[in-house]
């Protein structure tokens, strides 16, 4: 989502060689001159055509009744039938609720924690401690969700996992973290915090490094303490970064992370665990309702695009630099 770095509008330099009469002729000369470059370009262009744009064309089955032996083209059109079915289905409300609750839990808990951790790391002047802690907290980001889920299964296992036993000795009750639906969301947020909070600090630490140091000196002379400096200088200094990251997070709100949710879903917690991404998988891949699930996926990505443009416009209205 970092379209800001892409210089799509870069000015054309150096005119094409040998201006010949006629556009077609000119292009032929240009093409002949650069034939090796076009040859190099070919595999990549083919890749985008086949693996990125063909599936976009395949999205049309959301408006069709996809029949495998007829293919995408010949399957009959049904208009918005699948969308209507989806909105009328009780699953819709449940999915929307589950997805939004997880998204808001992540935004409300994991997101601020990332900023707090970055601020705390930024206050450390003992560089060996800072680097060591950074090295440690970045590691989980590189582990797969399969490993994160497996670690959770071991740590919280009923009657056996260390965290199960620890909670049991403190509270005196057995908590079935892995299959009790009430514990599904806390576990997901906990995993998210463990895996990505450290990694998320990188961007804020980079922004913190650009905060004007002179302001701190001035504030110290004015007698501002540690917390007031953070509140009045540091936080305003990284405000635009916080807003950009918030926009990105809100734009990604419906992308709950297929792998994580799928791996933590089981027969007992389906009611709270199902989100759009996993629903598309269960209904589409395992039950074969291709058109219907494509419609669900399309709905989700369209809402995502609206969200990211919407929050960006909102950020601009509050006179902040938006993303685009």
């Amino acid at each position, binding site marked *: 989502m970092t379209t*800001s770095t892409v210089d799509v509008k870069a000015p054309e330099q150096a005119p094409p060689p040998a201006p010949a009469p006629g556009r077609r002729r000119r292009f032929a000369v240009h093409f002949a001159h650069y034939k090796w*470059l076009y040859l190099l370009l070919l595999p990549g262009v083919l890749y985008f055509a086949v693996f990125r744009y063909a599936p976009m064309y395949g999205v049309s089955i959301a408006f069709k009744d996809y029949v495998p032996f007829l293919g995408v083209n010949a399957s009959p059109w049904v208009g918005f039938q699948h969308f209507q079915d989806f909105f009328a289905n009780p699953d819709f409300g449940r999915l929307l609720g589950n997805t939004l609750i997880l998204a808001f839990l992540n935004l409300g808990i994991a997101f601020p924690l990332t900023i707090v951790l970055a601020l*705390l*790391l930024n206050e450390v002047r003992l560089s060996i401690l800072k680097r060591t*802690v950074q090295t440690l907290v970045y590691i989980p980001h590189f582990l797969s969700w399969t490993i994160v889920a497996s670690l959770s299964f071991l740590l919280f296992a009923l009657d056996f996992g260390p965290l199960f036993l620890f909670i049991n000795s403190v509270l005196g009750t057995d908590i079935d973290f892995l299959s009790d639906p009430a514990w599904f969301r806390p576990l997901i947020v906990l995993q998210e915090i463990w895996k990505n909070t450290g990694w998320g600090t*990188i961007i804020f630490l980079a922004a913190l490094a650009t905060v004007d140091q002179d302001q701190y000196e001035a504030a110290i002379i004015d007698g501002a303490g540690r917390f007031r400096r953070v509140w009045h200088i540091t936080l305003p200094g990284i405000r635009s970064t916080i807003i950009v990251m918030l926009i990105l997070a809100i734009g990604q709100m419906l992308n709950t992370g297929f792998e994580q949710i799928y791996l933590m879903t089981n027969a007992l917690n389906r009611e709270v665990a199902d989100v759009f991404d996993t629903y598309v998988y269960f209904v589409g891949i395992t039950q074969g309702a291709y058109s219907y699930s494509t419609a669900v996926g399309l709905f989700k990505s369209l809402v995502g695009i609206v969200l990211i443009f919407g929050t960006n416009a909102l950020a601009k209205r509050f006179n902040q630099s938006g993303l685009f």
Partner: protein
Amino acid sequence: MKIHNTTGGRIFDAANYVFLAVIGVLTLLPFVYVFAGSFATEAEITRRAFFVWPEQFSLGAYEYIFSTPAFIRALVTTVLVTAVGTVVQLILTVTMAYPLAKRNLRGRQLILSLVVFAMVFSGGMIPTFLLIKDLGLLNSYWALILPAAINPFSLIIIKNFFQELPAELEESAKMDGATEIGILWRILLPLSKPVLATFALFYAVGIWNDFMSPLLYLSDNSKWTLQMYLRQVTASSDLLGSGNVDPNYIPPEQGIKFAVIVVATLPILIFYPFLQKHFAKGMLIGSVKG
């Protein structure tokens, strides 16, 4: 900048240092436990709630998994798919980035716009699955490699990197009669070795960790990758309601779960120092601007 620390400031510093050290240790603790457990006896794992050092060393779990054909197959498969996939991704990305770095190439703007659009919008899970199916790639390892063969973000970053290299290098090589491919191979690639090494590491980690592609495209469990195998081993049978696990499978003993997690994690940890050297920089190129 000199900050004269007050008493309150010093107390805060001390508390902050202790807190961060605890956070660092807590982050690592689950893995330390699993690592220790993988070298412990089955009896010790069930008897002791938590430990970071086994009382009695045992290689039993490793002996067991390395004598299991399904595990060996998954491990070898994953290593091969990761290696081939990384090379394919690098080649495709570099060969596409190089022409796109030439500002006077016709059609460049159009292709770049299409690449950017592909970042914002994708066909999604089902249309991509149907494409793979129509291409006859179901249960083929190519299905784990090709669909994500070019990452648009990396493509743009590498393109920008090529663009920023001094143009004189290429011009003098051209005077000496080098072809475009010769320039790419003999001049640009040696210069971009560190950048490409970074991307290669990230690609490799991505393929190694991938769970969704094998789940979607490999239904034949003799073709499973390590992540799929790990999933089957650690998800105890009574929790499985989400399919794709062999019903005849007997859940293994605890130590084996520990050992498989360690094997799946170790390559990442070994390469982590190399990753860490570059990722902060790499991520900043891509993300922070203004």
